């Protein structure tokens, strides 16, 4: 798993509103490579809408102004698939029709051409995550913690330039949670990815160790 030169994610003067109310008045954040910034807020505070907007998924009736860029690249007008924004959702969303390795191969860019080099990238990621030999397994047979790790690996293998975490620990039980949290942050830092996490759990924010922005 490699990424290009790590760059800073910046949000400038972001305002998100619904026709009847304002969710985020004015938000500017800089996330340095390898840094994890946490956005906290109650449900309905607009924190998930913020991530959806950065990913390019926010649709009407939301009205958004402001700018999002990664390094010198402005993301606002790019379609979602061109933004190279990796997102980890609360659900792992592993594809049930593909094997574990199939899911990860789906993430590996097509620029990694040969079958052998693609397999190599996947095997390396699996063994480094303590899942060596799990490639041919049906994702449905994995435990919740294993599935969560595969979902992260799939995102990282696609070589994103930033990482968005949409309450990715919400559905894991307490023991797994700390474990997986550490796994995610280690990888994000190791790859120098600017990471933006939304959560309503203060423990998550503390574990992230970066700046915390509270909405609402």
């Amino acid at each position, binding site marked *: 798993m490699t990424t290009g030169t790590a760059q800073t994610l910046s949000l400038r003067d972001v305002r998100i509103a619904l026709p009847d109310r304002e969710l985020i008045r004015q938000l500017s954040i800089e996330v340095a490579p390898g840094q994890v910034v946490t956005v906290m807020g109650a449900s309905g505070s607009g924190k998930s809408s913020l991530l959806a907007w950065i990913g390019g*998924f926010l649709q009407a009736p939301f009205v958004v102004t402001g700018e999002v860029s990664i390094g010198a690249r402005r993301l606002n007008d790019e379609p979602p698939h061109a933004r190279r924004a990796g997102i980890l959702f609360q659900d792992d969303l592993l594809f049930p*029709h*593909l094997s574990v390795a199939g899911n990860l191969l789906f993430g590996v860019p097509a620029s990694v051409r040969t079958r052998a080099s693609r397999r190599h990238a996947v095997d390396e990621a699996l063994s480094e995550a303590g899942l060596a030999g799990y490639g041919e397994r049906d994702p449905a047979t994995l435990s919740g913690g294993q599935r969560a790790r595969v979902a992260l690996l799939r*995102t990282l293998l696609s070589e994103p330039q930033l990482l968005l975490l949409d309450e990715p620990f919400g559905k894991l039980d307490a023991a797994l949670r700390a474990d997986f949290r550490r796994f995610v942050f280690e990888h994000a830092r190791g790859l120098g990815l600017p990471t933006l996490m939304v959560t309503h759990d203060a423990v998550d924010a503390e574990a992230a160790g970066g700046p915390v922005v509270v909405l609402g």
Partner: protein
Amino acid sequence: MNTRSPSFTKIGGLWACAPWITIAVFLLPVAAGLVGTVLPAFGYLPAIGGEHLSIEPWRALMDQPGVASSVRLSVQTGLLATAFSLALAAAFCELLQDHASYRRLSAMVSPLLATPHVALAIGLAFIIAPSGWLVRLASPALTGWDRPPAGLVTVRDPEGLAMVLGLVLKEVPYLILMTTAALSQVPHAALRRVGATLGYRPATTWFKLVFPQVYAQLRLPVYAVLAFSMSTVEVGLILGPGNPPPLALLASRWFADYDLQRYFPAAAAATLQGLLVLAALLAWRAGEVCVGSVGRAWCERGVRAGAIEPAARTAAGLAALALMLGLIALVGMAFWSFAQSWRFPAVLPGQWTLQTWALQLPRMTGTVMTTVGLALASALAAVLLTIACLEAETRRGHAPTHRVLWLVYMPLLVPQIAFLYGFQVVLVKLGLDGSSLAVAWAHLVFVLPYAFLSLADPWRALDPRYARTAAALGETPWRVLWRVRMPMLLKPVLLAFAIGCAVSVGQYLPTLFAGAGRVATLTTEAVTLSSGADPRIMGVYSFLQAGIPLLVYGAALALPALLYRRRRGMA
């Protein structure tokens, strides 16, 4: 207060019987009909002198000139129509998710679903015929033709392409509806997001991630489309080639012969049709496995975009075109019914008149009454049986397995021609052939699956706590059904009824066989008229054929809206 607590595990004898009665009512005709077709195919039908088993009927069938072409046509039209319909519907549903214009177009799906194949086929024939709308639009300005070109064969072409188009017009809306329903079982919005965050373009994401999961639920409807497209007689009569015809047409032609000895090769042709459909279904299944493994390899190569993007957009555009063509076909026939004169190459009728309607309607009263009566009777029976089965399921407390779904689909997977003749033989034995009851029963065989499939999902989705709350208040299971479940499910119940009516109105072969040719409906009359009658009269028939089901649909939607106009929770 009543302290009896109703039991959800033990169910009374009547309810326990309901699924079995239902299966008997709609599967016995299929099973008995198959036997009654296969035996004459091997020479056994004592009533007309076939006392011994022989392979003579098969020899007679094989000696028929062009029978190989009939077989090829049957397979070709079936596979082409199914593959095109599926591809178009799948691509359309992708764009449906994000584009308002496609969502507006999808409003056409319901009216087209309610329209019988025959009405659409007749309308399409008028659009693409040498004297039809397409040529008229270009004539004489572009073509120089001031009379219909004689050498041009667009309808009933020898390769059956007009027939494929006619089937696509009807099956695309059906598969769009089925795909939309299946999408509710798949987290498609989330999958499309994941695809995009991994850098995949929309159509690539759709066909790599969403569609494989949707297809698992779409399999049986697709099989039904394949079985129907291979073996339809009515669409073939209107749009298909006549010499040699598709196999099912050959069989039905011989079944209608005055020479009773023709029954034997006809039964052999019908049996062969059944085997062909079985073989095609198995081949399709094998194709699924191949496409699945090629598709997985395609997923694993990680290509983010490609030829699939323009291909999917083209297919979606063609689907939109198919929907519009279906609608234009209906409008064209409506125009004919009000036309006084409509000479070639005029694009619109020269003069309008109500005369055709005024002349035809009084003559059609009996046919319309029969059509409506059969539709109401078979749809009512189907809905009652469906409710009985679902209520039994609710009281037993668990849904049946996936295998039961195959049973429900059985009448749609076995070609009509392969069992309706045998069913007619059974009806003769019972002294029922030619009666309205027999025709209603034959319709029920096809109405029931659709009624069941449309009502089962909303029924099972109803929160069981409503019934438990009512039970806890002391209501008996009967009153829970009548006072809670039925009123809450009024809309889907009426919709199932409307769908049942539409299916009944469209039936051709079941009416013909069970009615022994003596029961005339709008559909059987329209098929008869399609071979060269006044297009104005055909317009009246097509209009009514499409209009009656639509009227029932409208009523099914309006009634709950009216009854519950003060209940926002029921909207």
